[in-house]
């Protein structure tokens, strides 16, 4: 029994089905990350939970109560908008106390709560500023404070960290997690950053074109993506299609092109059979590379190197004409155009049946 339950939720815009019969149960105090590319329906789901738009089918329930016919202003769902949506004609304090004043709370109580929440988001001393006088990061924290102070039953965060530079972003990630835990808020956070999703959430939901592709705990989704689509989202690359032509224990042979066969050992080889059409994938940082020929390594040629500060992205063209991407941290690399050897560790590679 979920605290927030979404049942066969569907939203259509003309011919486009933005959200296709989504089911999701979220426990009280749990934080779930919605992860997916632009336009896959994340915001639409949040807007249906908040009550701004009506679903074409399905229900949203909070604490066992169906919300479909309850207007947004009676739902007690706090929402953080991607563009903050602060009230431009009100100061920080007026923005934050808006919900408390509507509840006709006593002045002293309002003051106390506003001060507490502004402290929590580190905005002390900014109370009398107008939104336009604040930096992007500060505006964002006002929006967060405004949603938190109402003590919502459900908190919805729509890409709360997308417009921040990486330092502030990491600080805010820690803050959001801390506040969410402290106030035990049932939370959905939308993001398109897999690392943010796995570091913040108790569970991660990966969406594609209005549908859920996989739901799981961060480690599970990160390391064992259920489909090639999820894998790509979780940072896997080096997708290679082929057919299994031989199998012996853990050792398999995949024909990636006419007459081109790669040897690969795979820990879960027993799930596969000769004749299966498959897709192989591995993260670039899991690819092993070496300057000299080693046992189990295949040969290739460096076609491009991109220096990225703490590591180097190496593009390799294998001898069977496949592009392979590897990330190298500390090895002194040969030059572009020179020969290199690479291998896919048997526990890091994933092979999907097509």
């Amino acid at each position, binding site marked *: 029994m979920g605290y927030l339950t979404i049942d066969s939720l569907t939203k259509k815009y003309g011919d486009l089905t933005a959200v296709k019969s989504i089911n999701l149960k979220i426990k009280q105090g749990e934080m779930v990350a919605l992860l997916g590319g632009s336009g896959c329906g994340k915001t639409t789901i949040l*807007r249906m939970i*908040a*009550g*701004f738009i009506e679903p074409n089918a399905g229900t949203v329930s909070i604490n066992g109560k169906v919300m479909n016919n309850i*207007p*947004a*202003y*009676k*739902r*007690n*769902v*706090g*929402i953080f*908008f991607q*563009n903050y*949506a*602060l*009230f*431009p*004609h009100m100061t920080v304090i007026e923005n934050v106390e*808006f*919900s408390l004043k*509507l*509840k006709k709370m006593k002045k002293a109580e309002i003051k106390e709560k506003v001060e507490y929440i502004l402290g929590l988001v580190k905005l002390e001393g900014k109370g009398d500023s107008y939104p336009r006088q604040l930096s992007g990061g500060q505006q964002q924290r006002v929006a967060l404070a*405004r*949603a938190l102070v*109402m003590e919502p039953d459900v908190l919805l965060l729509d890409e709360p960290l997308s417009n921040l530079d990486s330092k502030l972003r990491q600080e805010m990630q820690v803050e959001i997690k801390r506040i969410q835990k402290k106030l035990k808020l049932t939370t959905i956070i939308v993001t398109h950053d897999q690392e943010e999703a796995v570091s913040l959430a108790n569970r991660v939901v990966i969406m594609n074109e209005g549908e859920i592709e996989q739901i799981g705990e961060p480690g599970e989704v990160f390391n064992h993506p259920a489909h090639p689509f999820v894998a790509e989202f979780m940072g896997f690359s080096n997708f290679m299609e082929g057919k299994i032509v031989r199998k012996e224990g853990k050792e398999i042979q995949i024909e990636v092109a006419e007459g081109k066969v790669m040897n690969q050992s795979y820990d879960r080889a027993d799930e596969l059979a000769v004749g299966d059409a498959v897709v192989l994938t591995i993260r670039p940082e899991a690819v092993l590379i070496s300057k000299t020929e080693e046992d189990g390594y295949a040969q290739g040629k460096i076609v491009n190197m991109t220096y990225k500060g703490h590591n180097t992205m190496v593009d390799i063209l294998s001898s069977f004409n496949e592009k392979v991407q590897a990330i190298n941290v500390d090895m002194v690399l040969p030059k572009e155009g020179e020969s290199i050897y690479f291998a896919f560790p048997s526990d890091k590679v994933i092979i999907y049946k097509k």
Partner: protein
Amino acid sequence: MYEKKKINWLFKLITVIAFMIILAPMIVIVIVSFNATEIITFPPQGLSMKWYANIFAENSKFVDGFLNSVKLAIVATLFDIVIGVLASISVTKYSFKQKGLLISLFTSPMFIPSIAFGFVLLQMTASMRILTPFLKILIGHIIIILPYIIRNTLGILTSYDWTIDDAAASLGANPVKVFFKITLPIIKPAVLSGALLAFLYSFDEAVISSLLTSAKFTTLPVQIINYMEFRFDPTVAAISTILMAISLALMILMDKFIGLDALTKQ
């Protein structure tokens, strides 16, 4: 880099010329209104307040006309603020097929010659006995000044972020509270600047009013036209001077309460 100095000079010259074009008639009117002679001469010959006294003379109807015009302009403007704001919100917030058509319809009275419009209105209302002259002119003004309010309001609403209203709703505000606490305060400067233009247009309007007027209800511009048919003295200049002073006072008040920035931005 282009030559800044030359461009600066050119801009300054054009600005000065523009100011002179705008200010010269006003200055002439003010000077003439204090002129001692009946025939309008320039430069003036002697100083006098008699034209001002003339406005308030016993048999003069200028004060009545002024009060009628104010009443008319206020009622028409208030009415149009309500219609204009609601109509602008409905065409910007919701998307539907005939949206563009509706917007052009709302602003179309701006492009109809007022003499033609006044004629049509006269024909249509001639047989309607229940309509007093005030109501007839009011209907005319409500229609012709609406575009000024709608254009200004639409201007701000087309870039309005409706998620702000959603945010207010999620924080517990019902639709009425959202409108009065969020939407209206945000669009208020644009609505008021449109309302000021509409008010001044209605107050100044002579064509429709003179077609629909009657002895019972005459506006100030109509009164002035009637007066000028028989007399041609600086009384009219004195009235204009007073009106300009009132307009200036209105502008200063607006500036104080909503800022002239908002007026010029639209």
